[in-house]
């Protein structure tokens, strides 16, 4: 039986994190450079966690995440910029649009397996990009400019907590367990009466909607979005966060998103070698720690106790889960 962290403890921790950053931002202790990176970390956590829901929890292999993010970003941008409607509506519409895109792509392509699905979803992402470039209503290749900059720390924080809670509760629900079952063995899951297409599409749609949320936040922070930003390299970046953190581990996605964003922020100072080092780190992490930093584990009471045990020199509890 997995023991979760006490809810009070989690709430206090979250509130403390929120307050520290909020105070840091309003007192000017955190420079605007790091402020951008903190927001970016938040957006990346949402992206990594939602991709992990599709790739790690359900065991499908999607490479279309940048596409869903683009759908959300442009739908949200149209709502606030072109139509002048409130930001909250932009979030709702952005998520719905991305979910719809997820449904449209998911229904036919989720019959494919493994690498075929990967390449089909990657194709979808590229199609979205090219189509956006050719629609004048969303600015063509130049994209949308002058989107209202309404995103601040509380909005990012609430979105991240919402995402993590949603995915965590999904995993713990019977739907989530069905997804885990079909990851482990889809034939066996089907024989147990699980409608595998239904659950694959469900996880896919939720993941897409959350990517759309990240897109809306991204658009309303940077105020300029161009279709060419949402190319497959962005998907690769998200995939790397998921892989470095640990496929199938929600805590891992958070750790991965934080690590990769901070690493690339530090590497900004050596622009010409930045990508070389980034790539070398990527290869090294895949070769020496293929299961990711956290494997498929979550940070729970038992795991903390085990780590505590290791520190104290004793064995700790036998199993993390």
């Amino acid at each position: 039986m997995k023991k979760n962290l006490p809810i009070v403890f989690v709430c206090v921790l979250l509130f403390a994190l929120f307050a520290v950053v909020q105070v840091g931002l309003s007192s000017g202790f955190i420079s605007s450079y790091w402020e951008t990176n903190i927001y970016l970390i938040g957006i990346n956590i949402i992206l990594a966690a939602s991709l992990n829901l599709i790739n790690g929890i359900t065991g499908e292999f999607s490479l279309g995440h940048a596409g869903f993010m683009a759908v959300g970003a442009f739908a949200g941008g149209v709502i606030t910029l072109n139509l002048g409607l409130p930001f909250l509506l932009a979030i709702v519409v952005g998520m719905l649009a991305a979910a719809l895109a997820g449904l449209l792509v998911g229904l036919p392509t989720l019959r494919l397996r493994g690498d075929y699905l990967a390449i089909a979803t990657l194709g979808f992402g590229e199609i979205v990009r090219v189509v956006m470039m050719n629609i004048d209503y969303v600015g063509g290749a130049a994209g949308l400019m002058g989107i209202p900059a309404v995103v601040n720390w509380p909005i990012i924080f609430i979105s991240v907590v919402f995402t993590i809670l949603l995915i965590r509760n999904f995993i713990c629900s019977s739907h989530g367990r069905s997804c885990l079952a079909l990851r482990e063995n889809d034939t066996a899951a089907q024989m147990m009466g699980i409608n595998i297409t239904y659950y694959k599409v469900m996880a896919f749609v939720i993941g897409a909607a959350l990517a759309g949320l990240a897109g809306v936040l991204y658009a309303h922070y940077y105020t300029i979005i161009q279709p060419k930003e949402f190319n497959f390299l962005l998907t690769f970046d998200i995939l790397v966060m998921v892989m470095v953190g640990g496929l199938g581990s929600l805590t891992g996605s958070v750790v991965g998103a934080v690590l990769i964003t901070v690493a690339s922020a530090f590497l900004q100072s050596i622009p010409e070698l930045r990508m070389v080092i980034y790539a070398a780190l990527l290869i090294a992490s895949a070769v020496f720690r293929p299961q990711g930093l956290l494997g498929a584990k979550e940070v729970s009471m038992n795991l903390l106790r085990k780590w505590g045990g290791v520190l104290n020199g004793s064995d700790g509890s036998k199993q993390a889960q």
Partner: protein
Amino acid sequence: MEELLQQLFNGLSLGSIYALIAVGYTMIYGIVKLINFAHGDVMMVGAYVALAGTIMGLGFIPSLVIAMIACAFLGVLIELVAYRRVRPVSRLAALTSAIGMSLFLEYTMMYFVGAEIRTFPPGVLTERTYNWAGIIITNKDLLVLGTTVVLVVFLQFIIYRTRTGKAMRAVSYDGQAAQLMGINVNNTISITFFIGSALAAAAGMLIGMYYNSINPLMGMMPGLKAFIAAVLGGIGSVPGAMLGGILLGMTESLVAGFGGSMYRDAVAFIILILVLLVRPTGLLGKDTQEKV
């Protein structure tokens, strides 16, 4: 009608380059079940090695051979460093490693040679055009087609007429069984990377001449498209990769020629998704039954 034929012919030479990259992709995928994202970048390295050769005054064929040999060893090295340890552990980790290797090659090359676009020196090929029944054919097209045909025939010979080829087919059919029969699986995989990367290098030189532009990121799009071509034709099948490459090249030329050049890159993916929906194993792929 002439316009159509002209576009089809242009597509044929572009498609034969795609085919050359796709063949390498399909061989590597068939044997290690891994999308080798670095394949397109091996192609890019090949183009640069060939460029260096031609700048030093070598002709077309010596440069091509040098590029092929250099990239063949690069391919083996990539497999050794980035894939060998990861492959048996996790396919997704291997894929991450492949993505990392792709970025590494691109940006290391950019660090050393700069991001600017280069072209082959003019002496390598003096352009001539022939008019054949209204279709304009350049000697560039003929060179591309000729090189592709020669290389593919040679490849077919290796795969179906030599012991090494037999071992490659065996490993790709069932790696474990092949090992039990005394085939050195790791060596066979290295040889596959050797051959596949050599073909990619040749494609790199050809595509550099075809578009008359070489830059460190040139491998990205053709690499992706070649993978599409490989999936289109049925991954793991060499004739399928050829067919997929040529079909893709022709469709792209048609779309670009009839006014849709903005959608050229999207068309490749739309075709891919449509074909996968109707025939998930690709045009010439074998249908495998899942055993429970």
